[in-house]
C-alpha cells in the first residue's frame, strides 16, 4: 500500500496532473489568504497584549492560549451556522465558497498567531522595556522595533499558523462542502479519496501535502538558523 502510494504520488507529480495542481493551488491560496488576515489580526492582538498592562490581562492570555486549541469541527460548525443562508450572514451567500474556508481558517489560526506573537513580544518587551524607557523611545518607534527585532521568531509563528491552516480538514469540509473545482482542497480531497476507498491516492495526496509542509519547515529552519547565527533571535 505504501509503495503504491509513493508510486501514485510520484506519478501525480511528474505527470503534472492538472486536477492535482488546481487542488494544490486552491489549498495554498486559501491558506495564504487566511494567513494574511490572521497576521493582520493576530499580530496587533499579541503585540498590544504584550506591551500593555491592564486588569484582566492574565485572563486574556489564558483565554488566548486556550483558543489555540480550538477544535476545527466546532469552528467549522460555528462558521457554517453564521454563513448559512438562514444564518445571520446568510445574505452574503458565502457558504460553499473559498471565502468561507478562508474565514474558518482565520478563526482557527488567528489565536495561534496572536498567542505565539504574544509570547515572543512579551519576552522581548521584558528585555527592552527599561532600555526604551531610559532612551525615551515613544510607542510609535518602540512597536516597529519590537516587530523588527522579533522577526525571526515571528516568522516561525506565522508558519506554524500556515501549517495548521493548510493541514486542517474538519472546518473547511463543513463550510466549503468539498465541491469539485470550487472548494476542494488537499485535505478534503484526501478525505474524499479515503471515503471512496482509494487509499493509495489518498495517501499519495497526503505525501504531497507532507512534502509541502516539509518545504515550508525547511524554509523556516533556514531563516531561523540565519537568525540564530547572528544572535538575532
Amino acid at each position, binding site marked *: 500500500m505504501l509503495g503504491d502510494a509513493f508510486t501514485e504520488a510520484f506519478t501525480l507529480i511528474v505527470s503534472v496532473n492538472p486536477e492535482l495542481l488546481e487542488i494544490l493551488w486552491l489549498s495554498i491560496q486559501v491558506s495564504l489568504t487566511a494567513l494574511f488576515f490572521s497576521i493582520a489580526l493576530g499580530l496587533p492582538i499579541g503585540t498590544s497584549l504584550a506591551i500593555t498592562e491592564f486588569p484582566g490581562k492574565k485572563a486574556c492570555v489564558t483565554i488566548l492560549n486556550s483558543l489555540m486549541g480550538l477544535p476545527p469541527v466546532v469552528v467549522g460548525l460555528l462558521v457554517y451556522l453564521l454563513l448559512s443562508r438562514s444564518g445571520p450572514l446568510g445574505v452574503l451567500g458565502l457558504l460553499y465558497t473559498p471565502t468561507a474556508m478562508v474565514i474558518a481558517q482565520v478563526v482557527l489560526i488567528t489565536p495561534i498567531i496572536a498567542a505565539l506573537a504574544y509570547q515572543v513580544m512579551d519576552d522581548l518587551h521584558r528585555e*527592552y522595556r*527599561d532600555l526604551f524607557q*531610559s*532612551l525615551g523611545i515613544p510607542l510609535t518607534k518602540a512597536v516597529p522595533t519590537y516587530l*523588527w527585532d522579533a522577526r525571526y521568531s515571528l516568522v516561525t509563528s506565522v508558519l506554524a499558523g500556515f501549517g495548521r491552516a493548510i493541514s486542517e480538514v474538519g472546518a473547511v469540509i463543513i463550510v466549503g462542502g468539498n465541491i469539485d473545482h470550487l472548494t476542494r482542497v488537499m485535505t478534503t480531497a484526501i478525505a474524499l479519496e479515503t471515503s471512496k476507498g482509494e487509499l493509495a491516492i489518498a495517501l499519495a495526496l497526503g505525501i504531497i501535502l507532507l512534502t509541502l509542509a516539509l518545504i515550508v519547515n525547511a524554509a523556516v529552519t533556514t531563516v531561523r538558523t540565519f537568525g540564530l547565527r*547572528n*544572535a538575532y533571535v
Partner: protein
Amino acid sequence: MFKSEPMSNTSALSATNAPYIEVNNLNLTIGGNQLLHDISVTSFTPGVTMVMGPNGAGKSLFLRCLHGLLIPTSGSIRLLNKPHESTTASQSMVFQKAVLLRRNVIKNLEFAAPNGTPPTEITELLAKVHLNGKELQPARLLSGGEQQRLALARSLLTKPRFLLLDEPTASLDPASVLIIERLISEATEQGVKCIFISHDLGQAKRLGADIIFLHQGRLAEHTDAETFFTSPQSREAKAYLDGEIVL
C-alpha cells in the same frame, strides 16, 4: 538614622549652587516589602558619585528611582533643582547586562542617536570604544566587554547631562574596564554627572568623587571619597572596606 547632613564635608566640593542630587525621604515598597527606607541624600559634587554597598542593599533600586524606571512610594528626587520626571530625558543609563537590539553594531547606535547626529560623530565614538571595524557585526555576538562598550557609546550618543551606570564593568575583561573608565572620566571632564554603582573598591578609588553607601535599603553613609576610604563614618562601611562579609 544615617541621614547625611546637607552641610557634610562633600559640600566643600560644590561647584554650583544647585545640588546635582537631592533626595528627600525616599521610600520604596514593592509587593508589600519595603525595599528602600527613608533615604535622604544631597550631593553637590561634580564628577562621579559612587553608589556602594553589599548585595541587596538597594543600590540598583535607588538608581532606578533616580532614572524614573521605578516610582518611589514616597519622597522626592530632584536633580539640579528640577523634579526628576523632567530630567529623565537628560539622563542615560547603562545597565548591568547590556541590552542590545537584534541588529548590527552601527544600527544599535543609530537607533539611539538623536535626529541629525552626524555620521562622523558615530564613527568617532566607535573608535573611542575600540569597536571600529566591527560596525556591521551583529551586536549580540560581541564579547561581554565589547557589548558593554557599545552600550556606553550608545548612552553617550544621547548627550546626557546625567549618566547612570549600574555595575557596568562587573566581570568584564580589564581592557574593557580601562576603556570604559577612560570614557567616563572624559565625560565628567565635559561636565557630565555620573552616578555609578560598583563593588570594585579600586574602581571606586579611581573614579569616585563622593560615595553613597547603602545597607539594607538604608543610607549608611555619604562622604567624599577620601574620607570614605581613609576613615569611614559608619560601622557598615568600615566592615565592608575591611573586607568583611557584610549582609
